[in-house]
């Protein structure tokens, strides 16, 4: 080899990398760095990392006003052994429990949830234990979750179910009952009723009345009463009627219907 060739590196063939080769190298190198960083984080930096699952437990004296609002964590309402309201929750997002001017509010803070693989692993739920006392105002709102409720009673009861389900063992409503369902499912047994409204967009509602309930069906509503398809008779809903508005979906009501004279 000549000296000048050795100096100028003419004997060496430098391989030029194509864009794809460069990209492959960059991706694998960056991936390796990220993987090492992830392992380092798990092993050293986040050594004391505690689970991000939020847990809480609180007790409150009975208040006549209760609002429960959840987005994706199932709610279980059971009977309390004492006269207190006990609230406990396990969730991946914050659950705020606070009293606001005499009203107890249990609210799951809305969050952007991609997926909940760990929901079953950690038993996400909000458990509420209520004493056997009537509420002046009871609001149960669920977005895309299940609501299981024991026997409750109240003067004004509002139940909203977006796309989840609400199952109420027994409801006594001495004042106004408002039920709103978008595309969810509501099952309930009502043993005391004085009047209210039921609005269903495209969900399924099954209601069993213990006594008589005068139902007034709005025009265009699909409704089954005691197994028979019922239609609007042109009446306007009075204060002590159950006005039913259901443009689609299915509403089934079992009751002793007072026939309009």
């Amino acid at each position: 080899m000549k000296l000048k060739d050795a100096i100028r590196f003419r004997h060496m063939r430098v391989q030029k990398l194509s864009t794809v080769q460069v990209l492959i190298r960059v991706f694998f190198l960056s991936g390796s760095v990220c993987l090492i960083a992830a392992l380092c984080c798990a092993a050293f930096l986040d050594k004391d990392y505690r689970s991000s699952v939020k847990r809480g437990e609180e007790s409150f004296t009975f208040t006549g006003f209760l609002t429960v609002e959840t987005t994706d964590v199932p709610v279980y309402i059971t009977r309390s052994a004492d006269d207190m309201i006990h609230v406990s929750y396990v969730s991946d997002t914050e659950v705020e429990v606070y009293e606001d001017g005499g009203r107890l509010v249990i609210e799951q803070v809305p969050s952007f949830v991609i997926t909940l693989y760990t929901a079953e692993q950690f038993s996400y739920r909000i458990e509420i234990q209520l004493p056997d006392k009537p509420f002046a105002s009871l609001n149960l709102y669920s977005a895309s979750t299940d609501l299981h409720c024991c026997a409750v009673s109240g003067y004004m009861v509002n139940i909203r179910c977006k796309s989840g389900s609400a199952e109420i063992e027994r409801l006594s409503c001495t004042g106004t009952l408002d039920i709103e369902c978008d595309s969810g499912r509501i099952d309930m047994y009502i043993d005391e009723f004085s009047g209210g409204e039921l609005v269903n967009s495209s969900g399924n509602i099954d209601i069993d009345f213990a006594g008589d309930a005068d139902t007034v069906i709005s025009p265009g509503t699909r409704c089954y009463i005691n197994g028979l398809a019922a239609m609007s008779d042109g009446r306007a809903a009075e204060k002590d009627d159950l006005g039913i508005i259901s443009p689609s979906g299915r509403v089934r009501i079992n009751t002793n219907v007072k026939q309009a004279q």
Partner: protein
Amino acid sequence: MQTKTLCKFSRIPQTVCRIALSAAIFTGILVVMVFALALIANGMITLPSAVIRAVGKGSIFVSDLSALTMLFFGAASLLFGLGLILLSTARLCPAAASYVYRLFSSDKE
């Protein structure tokens, strides 16, 4: 017409062996590509999930990891997936196609 065999003791025709070999090669490449796509998908879900959790409004995904670990894990998954899919499309597939072509055209030569 005498059938060519792969080895003395085998009665399997050479063409069948070649077809099986090329099928195995392409199946292997397909598996690699599917794995790469799975890695990319995992990264594409894990990364935003980690960002959402780091912001403090997020949910748990896959396992109960910290935001930083999830971030690096997602990035590693995405980058390895992209690297692997590029490798398989730009290198493995042409190489396999060339090899299979030579495998089947060796008789003619």
